[in-house]
């Protein structure tokens, strides 16, 4: 008898605000411990929270993108528990009335589309962190992260495989970045995925789940879930029971390990936070956000295919991130919007290759969209050949200026004077009588040899089309 896998995800997306959700402290990553924690973040006596209103618009954005219900009156509640990195002894969160209600997200796995339910998304403050192993015999507390705004996005248990779970996580990751509400940096913890995994016999009630936490790459999420599914099936098939617990993934050994048992359920004693008023969202607020909504990835992909004639594959690659899509659209616009395929090819092959080798993201590209467009324009008007363009590209990468500057300074302008090309052709044919004989005897591959020689003689600058045309005329005549 087979097993059915049931997975639901809880994603913590750190919102891209300048300051914390309830104080004016910066949330910039990587500062010295406790340099970005004010009296409010420290939970000092008499300090009060004031909501950073930037989080409201960002939450509405997500709601609109997920076609979700919007909590017209959402309420902050206190989740009470003691922990050294939780300064107030409670986390301000939302429970009964979240800002984002039921919605959906469509994923695609191996060409099959599936709708995944989103249960809710609620606003909350992050905790600080405990630092071990720096102070001898003591643990340190760094409260820089305390009060960082999070949107916790909770899915329905709708996913039936590790692949589906990762497809959902990737889609959400792409979406929040498109929406400009989260920078998606998984290494810095800006986008954290917790997976609830269980297995059951088809048609049976839900099995006991375990939660996989703190996994900072999609690849490891997939491997961790795969391992956990296999482990649970093995336990159940050998007559054992699954314990509800949190498990951590050990990437070095590709296993999950128990972190803490949830058997003794915590009582968080939630109640509405009396220091904060309910967040009231009007229809006008929603319409104002709707008017500012960026084009979402699915719509953008469809438009690239329909409007620019790109393949599904190319459209998928170019819309892989909002920054890449914006780069592509900037190049295309600057080249007059004529040849999307050429622009796409340069970005997807040469530029992406160079960025990958250098470990840079598109927003860090040494070649601006304007410069790349300038080069493509010179190909389109035959100033340079595709081959010369590679040289121009390399020079632009090294920061030598625009394509026009480089063509001028390096003398890379293409030779298009047919008289000059004719002279080169005649010279090469005169110097290679044996090869001419061979060609005439039927060895047509000699044509390529001649083109190579002619291009070499021109220092690579002869227009290849004209070379071919004149060469064929000479040989034929």
């Amino acid at each position: 008898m087979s097993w059915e896998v049931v997975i639901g995800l809880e994603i913590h997306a750190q919102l891209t605000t300048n300051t914390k959700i309830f104080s004016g402290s910066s949330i910039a990553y990587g500062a010295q411990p406790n340099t970005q924690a004010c009296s409010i973040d420290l939970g000092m006596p008499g300090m009060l929270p004031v909501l950073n209103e930037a989080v409201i618009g960002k939450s509405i954005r997500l709601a609109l993108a997920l076609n979700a219900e919007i909590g017209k009156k959402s309420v902050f509640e206190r989740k009470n528990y003691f922990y050294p990195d939780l300064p107030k002894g409670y986390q301000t969160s939302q429970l009964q009335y979240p800002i984002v209600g039921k919605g959906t997200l469509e994923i695609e796995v191996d060409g099959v589309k599936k709708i995944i339910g989103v249960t809710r998304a609620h606003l909350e403050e992050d905790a600080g962190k405990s630092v071990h192993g720096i102070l001898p015999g003591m643990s340190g507390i760094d409260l820089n992260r305390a009060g960082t705004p999070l949107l916790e996005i909770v899915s329905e248990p709708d996913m039936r495989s590790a692949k589906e779970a990762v497809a959902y996580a990737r889609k959400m990751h792409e979406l929040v970045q498109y929406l400009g509400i989260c920078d998606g940096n998984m290494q810095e913890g800006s986008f954290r995925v917790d997976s609830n995994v269980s297995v059951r016999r088809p048609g049976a009630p839900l099995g006991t789940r375990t939660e996989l936490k703190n996994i900072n790459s999609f690849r490891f999420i997939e491997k961790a879930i795969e391992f956990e599914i296999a482990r649970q099936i093995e336990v159940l098939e050998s007559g054992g029971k699954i314990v509800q617990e949190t498990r951590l993934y050990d990437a070095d050994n590709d296993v999950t390990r128990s972190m803490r048992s949830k058997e003794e359920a915590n009582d968080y004693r939630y109640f509405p936070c009396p220091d904060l008023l309910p967040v009231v969202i009007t229809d006008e607020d929603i319409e104002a956000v709707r008017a500012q909504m960026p084009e979402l990835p699915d719509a953008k992909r469809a438009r690239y295919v329909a409007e620019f004639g790109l393949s599904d594959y190319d459209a998928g690659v170019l819309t892989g991130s909002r920054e890449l899509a914006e780069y592509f659209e900037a190049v295309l616009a600057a080249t007059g919007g004529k040849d999307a395929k050429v622009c796409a090819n340069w970005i997807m092959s040469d530029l992406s290759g160079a960025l990958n080798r250098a470990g840079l993201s598109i927003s860090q590209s040494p070649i601006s969209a304007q410069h790349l467009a300038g080069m493509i324009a010179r190909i389109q008007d035959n100033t340079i050949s595709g081959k010369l363009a590679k040289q121009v590209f390399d020079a632009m990468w090294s920061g030598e200026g625009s394509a026009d500057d480089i063509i001028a300074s390096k003398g890379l302008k293409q030779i298009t004077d047919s008289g000059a090309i004719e002279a080169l052709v005649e010279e090469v044919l005169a110097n290679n009588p044996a090869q001419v004989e061979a060609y005439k005897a039927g060895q047509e591959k000699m044509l390529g040899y001649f083109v190579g020689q002619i291009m070499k003689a021109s220092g690579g600058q002869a227009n290849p089309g004209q070379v071919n045309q004149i060469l064929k005329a000479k040989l034929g005549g």
Partner: protein
Amino acid sequence: MHNLTIKQMSEKLHAGEITSVQLTQHYLDRIAKYDGELNAYVTVTPELAMEMAKQADERLQNGTAELLTGIPVAHKDIFCTDGVKTSCSSKMLDNFIAPYDAHVVTQLKKVGMPILGKTNMDEFAMGSSSESSYYGPTRNPWDHQAVPGGSSGGAAAVIAAGLAPMATGTDTGGSIRQPAAFCGITGIKPTYGTVSRFGIVAYASSFDQAGPMTRSAEEAAWLLNAMAGFDERDSTSLQRDGADYAAELNQPLNGLKVGVPAEYFGEGLDPQVEKVVRDAIAEIQKQGAEIVEVSLPNKDLAVPSYYVLAPAEASSNLSRFDGVRFGHRCEKPKDLQDLYTRSRAEGFGAEVKRRIMVGAYALSAGFYDAYYLKAQKLRRMVRDDFTRAFEQCDVIMGPVAPTPAFNIGEKTDDPTSMYLADLYTIPVNLAGLPGLSVPAGFVNNRPVGLHIVGPYFSEAKLLNIAHQYQQATDWHKQMPAQYQ
């Protein structure tokens, strides 16, 4: 000098007849002389006071002084005061020097009121007698055997004994009005949201409200003007632009409809206190007010509702006192659990622990609906009682407390009887309404207060009614003989 009214002090300061330095020194001398027996101050701040007095004198000379510039003030030890110990009368915060000012402290510093010190109170404002202070009980200046009321008992005592001309207090369930009544002074709890809670150590956030404690209603209006105002740092702070709480002083009481609820004169009310209160209402009537009978049928639900909701909020508000970042930390903790358990067990007194436990219980899984949610419903019923009553009257009058000040130690072993000391004041906090206590007479040489409650934002009206009453009476001018 301590027998002058604030108006007289201000006139003399502005005329250059006295200086703020002289005035402040006079009060510091009186504190040195009398506070040993009263224990009304937790901390006296002579250096800060004299420095501020000098600055106030400069303003008085260069013409930038306001009405209250140079008049010293005492802050309840619940208001964080930059560089000064802010203990909330708890061992937990005995070592806590606040690194910032509460909004109220900032406001009064701007006016130029020298800070004499921080007044004693019930620990974390939880109590009705100021006996739960870590620093020991404050004594009532009228009778050292009696409590001064609470939790702002220190503040009430310093005004009654002339150890400060003006004081600040906070009122969560009656903590300004009840000690004002017990000590024969005037105190008003404004509409919730009128005075910013920023920098006030939180007890029960949805009830806590600060207000002035003074000899007269006129003086309370002036101090409230200085304390109140919108503060963006408190999300529950109200925009009351241009509000002037002294604006209605000197309005005649003709046609005023005074509601007298039968429920406020029922079982448990000391007959002598009732007589004092009824006489006071008769005086108001004599000035042209009309008496109407109103009903607050859910009055008896208020105390049970309050003693679920306030402890629930307190149990969460006091979680931050965990021995990790500030406040009391136990010696040599074995591990984290030990650090939490012993720091809190040692740092908090019995009443605070009792309320934390009651509150945590009311919020816990399985009990939340039966206690917390139910108490919220009762809170709405109590508030609706007032809404209906104010359809028939402008203000409501009754006793502040069922008895005059009780004896020190009389109720410390019986928390429930202590809680009932606030049965008339608590409903006002549940509804968030303004309420005022004005001295109305004595029973056995212990003062009794008249309670005046109005609709939201009616502070100016309440203060005028009290002021008119004080034009015809002199209860508020009386001082205990040994402190005159």
